[in-house]
């Protein structure tokens, strides 16, 4: 087949520019490498600032334990799915990975709200500590999201917005999990609504940041 002069020259130029480079590690390893420092920082924060004894007492309730596990798994699954989706040849079905635990998280939180409402009546609709929850999820989720986005952009994703949105869901899940250590009371319906708004805000901010022009990761020999 005939190759146009411009395509011919383009191939020659690209070949001339082919310097040795470091491949990206597999997505599972990238997830672990990102989670390790996050887990270390979170552990320090929990040990120093949280009321661990109260938390452990509350965590004996199986419903809260399910909610905690669902929140954490949603977070980790969202981060893993984002790393997978950032690569060109991975299935878009990875986007479904966090959805089952996300549904479980919302359902178990909703059930806790319902129990609280039955027990306390109209108080179940009050804005409890919602503003603190919102601030906590944003203050934790946005810096985590920014650090995750930097790593995701090294893959120069072909569709950056869904990748960033999935990463946003992941960090918001992790932030919501950490919130439970500093949230020693049952959530009201209003609290749940605010949690979901906070998660949506983190996803939206990361999706907007994903529109910024990508850095040319391939141009840097140390790209990871």
């Amino acid at each position, binding site marked *: *087949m005939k*190759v*146009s*002069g*411009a*395509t011919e*020259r*383009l*191939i*020659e*130029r*690209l*070949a*001339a*520019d*082919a*310097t*040795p*480079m*470091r*491949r*990206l590690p*597999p997505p599972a390893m990238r997830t672990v490498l990102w989670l390790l420092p996050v887990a270390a920082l979170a552990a320090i924060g929990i040990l120093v600032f949280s009321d661990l004894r109260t938390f452990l007492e509350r965590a004996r309730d199986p419903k809260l334990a399910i909610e905690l596990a669902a929140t954490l798994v949603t977070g980790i699954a969202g981060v893993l799915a984002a790393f997978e989706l*950032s*690569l*060109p*040849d991975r299935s878009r079905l990875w986007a479904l990975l966090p959805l089952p635990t996300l549904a479980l998280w919302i359902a178990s939180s909703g059930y806790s709200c319902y129990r609280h409402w039955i027990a306390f009546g109209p108080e179940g609709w009050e804005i409890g500590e919602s503003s603190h929850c919102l601030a906590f999820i944003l203050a934790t989720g946005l810096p985590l999201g920014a650090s995750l986005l930097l790593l995701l952009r090294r*893959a*120069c994703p*072909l*569709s950056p917005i869904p990748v960033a949105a999935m990463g946003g869901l992941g960090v918001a899940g992790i932030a919501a999990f950490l919130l439970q250590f500093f949230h020693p009371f049952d959530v009201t319906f209003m609290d749940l609504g605010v949690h979901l708004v906070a998660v949506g805000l983190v996803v939206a901010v990361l999706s907007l940041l994903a529109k*910024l*022009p990508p*850095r*040319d*990761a*391939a*141009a840097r020999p140390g*790209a990871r």
Partner: protein
Amino acid sequence: MAAEESGHDVVRDERWSRLMAAAQAGDRACYEALLRDCLPFIRAVVARQHRRPDRIEDVVQDVLLTIHRVRHTYDPRRPFTPWLAAIARRRSIDLLRRRMRSDAREVADEEAYETFADPAANKDKDAADRAAELALAVATLPEGQRQAIELVKLREMSLEEAAQASGKSAGSLKVSIHRAIKTLRAHLRGA
């Protein structure tokens, strides 16, 4: 027959995978061989969305540039063809969407292409080639300069908008644009 073709595809995939692994290690000859070898495959994928030969060639060049930019994402333990096909399909659809958006906004006026008094200036057969040269030159600029040129000159943002999008000051962007134009001028003179 189908089995024979499938066997051929496997052999071809293994060859491309080896060439890309060598290219990632800096082997320029292997990289050049790979890009040439892949061209018919890329054209076939692109031709599913685009019909005009000149447009197909533009998209093929864009796919080659994208392969170059994301080549560090290929894992040689996985098949190469799905990686390549995903890039070709994605870029092809992106450019089709972009063209549909611009077609929806713009009205074609054939006479408007005749912009110069000298008729010869309107019949420059190398115009497409030079556009591709320029695209490549922009792609190979240092990161800061490329970003400044893309935001201000190609996306036609104001300096303030570009400063907001890039997180750099307007003054720094001006310097980057000035340097980029100087680099491009030198690059294109030497081409």
